[in-house]
């Protein structure tokens, strides 16, 4: 019979590995992506995966101090995605 905390630690390490592999695959798509839209999408996915990694770090260390970091990264990720897309669409970010 496995302890529940052991089970949670194993799940935590599996989640770290899975999201690290996901981040690497998004980076491969960022490098090889044939179109500009694919590269913007890969960067957006990388930001989301980075948020996931920081949330996992907060769970692993048992602290609450990574909450603000995650919030700021979420906001900046959205703004940068929209800025890239606007630049490709209109040739200008703020008209």
């Amino acid at each position: 019979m496995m302890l529940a905390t052991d089970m949670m630690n194993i799940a935590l390490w599996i989640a770290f590995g899975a999201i690290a592999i996901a981040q690497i695959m998004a980076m491969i798509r960022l490098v090889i992506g044939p179109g500009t839209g694919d590269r913007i999408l890969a960067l957006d996915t990388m930001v989301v995966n980075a948020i996931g990694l920081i949330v996992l770090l907060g769970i692993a260390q048992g602290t609450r101090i990574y909450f603000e970091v995650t919030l700021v990264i979420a906001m900046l990720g959205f703004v940068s995605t929209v800025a890239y897309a606007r630049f490709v669409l209109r040739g200008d970010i703020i008209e």
Partner: protein
Amino acid sequence: MIWEVIVTYAVAICLIIGAAFSLIGSIGLLKFNDSMTRLHAPTKVGTVGIGALLLASMIHSYLTGYGALHELLIMAFLFVTAPISANFIAKVNLHRRDCDMPPAPPQDETWSTLNVPEADLELQEQKDA
């Protein structure tokens, strides 16, 4: 005591669900072979994957005694902004013609990316006349 065990298992299940959705979404981003098809997979990473991880973080904070619902803020922000950025990326794909194009629009030059409102067209006609 039995309650703590159940909550710990709930955290583990949420972590596994979130990690699985993130991994599968990135596999889809890497393996699909069309730009619009590739757009479909990572939207699940941004909603279900991160949603489950943040839910695990919330449950874990209650488990350790410093319970808080702060992560709901990040969850709400991500859920609101994910469709907007997906819409913008789809517009980029249409604008750059990286995908199978729909039939040509009746008046505009490209689909929805260079759309001019009616009021601006009237202003332009007045300026030309």
